[in-house]
Every structure is written in C-alpha cells, then in structure tokens.
C-alpha cells in the first residue's frame, strides 16, 4: 500500500519524471557500448548467417589457405599425372580459383586456366618477386610446397580475386552498426525529452488560454478540466479554486448590491411617503382662507418639502454610490443626446421658473463612456441646482466647447452655466453640497473631469473627458483664469 502510494506520488511529480528521464539517459551511456555489441551480435546472427551462398567456400581466406596447404601436403611424392588430376578436380570444386603448378625444375606445368602474366620458367628471382607482389594484394594468393617444405617437389599456387572473400569482411559494417545504434539511442532520448517538454508546454498554454479568455457576461476566466495530478495539475486545481472564489465573490457582491439597493429604495420610499402626505395637506390648507403671512409660510414649507425630497434622493444615492456596491454599466454613448433629452424634460420647469435656456450643442456627437441612468442623474442634479440656487440669474446656458487637454489634444467639453449668485452666496451653501458630491463622484466613476468656476456673477461647470495622458485631481488646468475656482470635492 505504502509502496503503491509512493509510486503514485512519484508519478505525480514532474520533477521526478524529469529526473528519471535524465538518470536513464546517464545510466545508458556506459551501458550503451556493450549493448551496441550485443545488438551487433544479434544482428550478425540473425541477419548475417544467411543460408550458404553458392561461393560460401571462399568466404574465409584462412580456411582456403589451410585447404590449399593440406592438398599440397597430401600430394607428396605424387606423379605429375596424379598432381594434374588432383588440381583439375580441385578446379572443378573451386571454379573461380586460378591454379598453377611449378615443378622442382622451376617449370610451369599446369595452369588452370591459362594466364598471360605467368612465365613458363619460374626463376628464383621471379618467384620472390611474385611472392612479394602477392602479399596483401588482390587477388588473394596462396603458395604451397608440394609435400614437405624440403621435399623439392615444386609448389602450387592458387589465386582468387578478393571480391570473393572480402565481400563479407565484417570490419566496416560493424562500425556502421555501432554508429547507427548509438545515433538511434541518442535520437530516442532527444525525442522523449522533447515530447516531455512539448506536453508540459501544451498544458501550460491551455491554462494560459483559459486565463486570458474570460466569460463575456461575468468577466471571470473559465475553469479548466484537470489533466493530471502533477505540479501543473495542482496549478490547474489552484486556478479553478481561484475562479470559483471569484465567482462566489462576484455573486456575493451582486447579492449585497441588490440588498443594499432594495434597502435604500424602500428607505427612499418610506421617507417620501410622509412628505407626500404633508404636501397634500399643505395643498388642502392653501385652499382654506388664510392670511398673507399664512400663505407665505405655506409656500415656504412647500418649497422646502420639494428640496427635502431632492436631498433624500441625493443622500441615498451618495450612500449607495460610495458604498462601492453599485456597478456602473458604462457604455460608449453620445452624451449630447442625453443632455438634449434631459434638457427637454427640464424645459417646462425652467420656463415656469422664469429661467431662459440658451442651448447650443455642437452637431457632431460627443462619445463618452457613461452609465445612461447615472449620467441623467448627474445632469438632473446640475439642472436642479440652477433652478434651486440660481433662479435669480434667469439664465441657464448649456453648450459645448473645444478644450485643450494634456498632450495638446482637443476634446469636446460640456458646459452648464448660470448667472446666479455663485457658491459664495448663502443659498448655494445650503444643500448644494450633497448634490454636487454625487455629480463629482459620478463624473469620476465615468472617467470624466468636472470643474466648477464660481463667482458673484454666476457659476460655470465644465465636464470633459481627460485625454489619454489623464488629468489628475487637483491639477490646475487654466492657471490664467480670473474667476474663483475650486474642485467640487473640496466642498
């Protein structure tokens, strides 16, 4: 059991498998040479011991030489006829062998077949020359004295072209085989190592692909199927754990967001209900006979109730937004369209309040990444502020301007201006803060920059999308400006 587990653990480790691979390769080096011999022997025995070829009798020069000497010895004291007979019968047995008999008088007696280069008389000098020429030369030559060496009965010569005996010379093919075997083994080792790494690489790439292709809906990468329980397998497992944790986290965040939203929505409703009741009763009171002061008080109460409604909305929105539980759904939208639609909805309110709208937005769209619903809230807050705090100016300007941003680029900016008393006045300090804080927060969340310039002659709010270089909060954009200027979040 323990052994099995150890084996399992061994197989589960890439390090161990790699070490095994290297060890096998190292161990194989010394074993390889004897193994190559065994291989050669095996190959030689299986493939070289082919069934005897017709000229197998020539295969071994030594055998041939021995045979020749044996024949010569046996011919001791034989008559010339007997020698001739024997040679002819030998010639029949070995048809490729040239044979020559020189008698004791140095005369060529028999030549099978007749050869041009052989002299009729073999002088001692010629004999020595012939012997010298024949050593290690082609044809393979054997000279044997007939009878004993001292018998003086002459000698006989046999010659055979080496092609008959040297074809099967194993010396050269042995080297080739060794080389081939070594090359094959090295090749095999390289192949196995390569496969080992290719498979690791493939699995790692698969994991990388899973990581870089997130689910479109959730933005969380997809989990992968486990392959093996080795190191990469553990990585895959860890990665899957991470994915499920992310999903769980996202789900929990969504739940919290939902909970918080519904809580705040019902809170908003609960706060508004009594306000509605109060308002309806003010309305009833207004129709009763009242003194001038009484009517004045009622209209003041009524106005404050309206303010309170807006304040509740902004307060709750701000709470919701800053809780970090709300995800803005940013989309590339033409904000000028949204501005126009929002302004169109506000138009009757401005008319009623005696505010003259001056709207001059450029024709080409201004595309920003915004959450439509929250961008409307941003605009509503700005428009509401004008109605509430700058009504005395009787003016609202909504227009676009080209603005220089970092890096010299020009970008469209949205400007909302009024001719109210500005932030310095008492009216603005009351209640504008939370509404503008919501504006500022939303602008930041949508990657927009919002700047407020305020003086006694009016307020001018500029919203633009910072260039690729980015404009950082607190950075002065227009140091030459004359008006009092401060960031919204300072308030």
């Amino acid at each position, binding site marked *: 059991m323990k052994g099995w587990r150890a084996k399992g653990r061994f197989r589960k480790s890439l390090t161990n498998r790699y070490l095994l691979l290297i060890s096998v390769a190292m161990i194989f080096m010394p074993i390889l040479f004897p193994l190559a011999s065994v291989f050669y022997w095996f190959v030689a025995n299986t493939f070289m011991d082919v069934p005897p070829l017709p000229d197998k009798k020539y295969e071994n020069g030594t055998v041939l030489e021995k045979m020749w000497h044996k024949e010569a010895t046996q011919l001791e004291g034989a008559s010339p006829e007997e020698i001739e007979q024997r040679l002819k019968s030998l010639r029949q047995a070995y048809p490729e062998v040239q044979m020559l008999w020189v008698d004791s008088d140095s005369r060529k007696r028999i030549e099978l077949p007749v050869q041009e280069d052989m002299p009729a008389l073999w002088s001692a000098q010629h004999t020595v020359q012939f012997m010298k020429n024949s050593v290690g030369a082609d044809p393979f030559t054997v000279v044997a004295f007939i009878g004993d060496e001292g018998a003086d009965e002459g000698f006989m010569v046999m010659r055979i072209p080496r092609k008959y005996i040297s074809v099967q010379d194993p010396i050269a093919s042995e080297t080739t085989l060794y080389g081939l075997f070594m090359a094959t083994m090295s090749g095999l080792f390289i192949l196995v190592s390569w496969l080992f790494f290719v498979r690791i690489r493939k699995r790692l790439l698969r994991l990388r692909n899973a990581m870089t292709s997130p689910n479109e809906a959730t933005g969380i990468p997809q989990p992968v199927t486990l392959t093996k329980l080795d190191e990469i397998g553990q990585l895959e497992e860890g990665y899957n754990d991470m994915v499920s944790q992310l999903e769980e986290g996202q789900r929990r965040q969504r739940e919290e967001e939902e909970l918080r939203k519904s809580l705040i929505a019902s809170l908003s*409703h609960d706060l508004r209900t009594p306000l509605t009741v109060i*308002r309806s009763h003010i309305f009833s009171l207004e129709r009763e006979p009242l003194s001038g002061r009484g009517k004045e008080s009622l209209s003041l109460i009524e106005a404050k109730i309206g303010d309170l409604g807006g304040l509740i909305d902004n307060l709750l929105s701000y709470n919701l937004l800053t809780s970090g539980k709300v995800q803005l759904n940013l989309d590339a939208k033409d904000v000028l369209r949204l501005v126009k639609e929002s302004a169109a909805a506000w138009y009757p309110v401005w008319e009623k309040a005696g505010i003259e709208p*001056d*709207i001059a937005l450029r024709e080409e769209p201004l595309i920003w990444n915004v959450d439509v619903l929250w961008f409307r809230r941003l605009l509503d807050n700005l428009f509401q502020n004008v109605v509430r705090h700058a009504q005395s100016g009787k003016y609202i300007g909504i227009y676009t301007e080209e603005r220089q941003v970092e890096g010299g680029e020009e970008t469209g900016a949205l400007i909302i201006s009024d001719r109210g008393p500005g932030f310095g006045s008492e009216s603005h300090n009351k209640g504008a803060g939370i509404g503008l804080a919501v504006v500022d927060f939303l602008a930041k969340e949508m990657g927009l920059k919002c700047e407020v310039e305020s003086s006694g002659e009016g307020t001018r709010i500029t919203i633009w999308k910072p260039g690729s270089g980015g404009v950082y909060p607190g950075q002065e954009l227009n140091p030459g400006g004359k008006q009092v200027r401060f960031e919204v979040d300072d308030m």
Partner: protein
Amino acid sequence: MSASILYIEDDRDIGGWVSDFLKEKGYGVKWLQSGEKAVEEAAQCAVVVLDVMLPGLDGFTVGQRLKKAYPGLPILMLSARTSIDDKLQGLEFADDYLTKPFHPDELAARVEVLLRRSAVQSAEPVRVKHLTVYEGENRIVNEDTGEEILLTGKQYQIFMYLLQHQGRVMTKEQIYESVWGESYIEGDKTLMVHIRYLREKLERDPASPEIIETVRGLGYRVKA
C-alpha cells in the same frame, strides 16, 4: 361620465387624499391598496396611476402585467425618473413618471396629458388652437376655414408624434427615429424641411408658428 382612473397606492393617507382630490377634479377614481386585482380593475379605466412600492407585488411587476394586458393603457408611475433603483432600466411600460412628494396639481396635469394622449389614439377629436384633429380618421380640419388639411405620410406622423407628447419638448433625434424608424445622422436636414412644409400647411402664419414651437438647441413641441 368622465374618464376613470385606476389608482394603486398602499399608503392610506396619501391614497385617500389623492383619490378625493382627483374625484374633486371630476375624474372617476378606483383606488386599490395592493396590486393584486389591478389587471381586472384596469379594464374599465382610461389611465393608471401606480406607486412603486406595494405590499405583495411591487409596482414594477404590476406595471408590466398591466401593459401586457392592455398595451394602449397609459400608466403614470410614481417614482423618480432617475431613481436609485436600476429596475427603471426595464421600465418601458410607464408612459410618465412623477416623483414623490409630488404637487397635487402636477399630478392632475400629468393625468390630463395622459388622458388626452389616449384620446388622440382613440376616435375622439382633439382641439389644438385653430385645428381639430380626428386621429381615428386621419383627418385634420382647419376651423378657421372649415377646410380639411391634407398632409403627406411623414408630415402626419411627425405631427401625431408631437401631439401624442403634447407639452413635452421632443428632440430632433427622438422625432426622427420614431417617424423614420432609423438612427438620426447628425447634420441631417430632412426633419427641418418636413417641419417647414408642415408649418406652411398647419400654421396661420408660418413665420411665427403657434402650433409647432421650435425649442432652440433642442427640438420641437406642441404646447399643451
């Protein structure tokens, strides 16, 4: 009998007061404290005023059910137009919004607009300045001369769109996309040209239009 309103509100104080107020104004009012029977009751009503939060079913669900059952029935939702509740994104069913605490007169005015809008869609003639519009018959009569005004298809559609949203400023984009059914391309003068011809036919003096008002920088509106 005057048009009846289905009013769904769970708060007793507001519900009682508002239904009395609307009755005073001369409407027939059916007040429900929950959304459960809304669909059955809506059959006899000309407009629905719906609160966002109701016990049992929430206002959004009730609204969707009502719109499914009576697609032509106008619904006024008592909710912020840009509410903190993002359910509003799926709030296509509401024809108008009103934020609490609303002014009773504002509510009455909105209800009146919705009723008129639904009247435009019905056979009842609508009077705009010197014109009488019979929408069911596709007929517009100039009461000054007693003659019928003949409009082209697009002119008629533009006028009807503005009339249905009487009192509201409609942007060029909104009008173009509703009438032509395709996205508005900036700089397109088609709508302007159509409005000019439309005015020549409708207005007493096309140079100072009384019926189709230009709202500079935004669009057009037919004043209520």
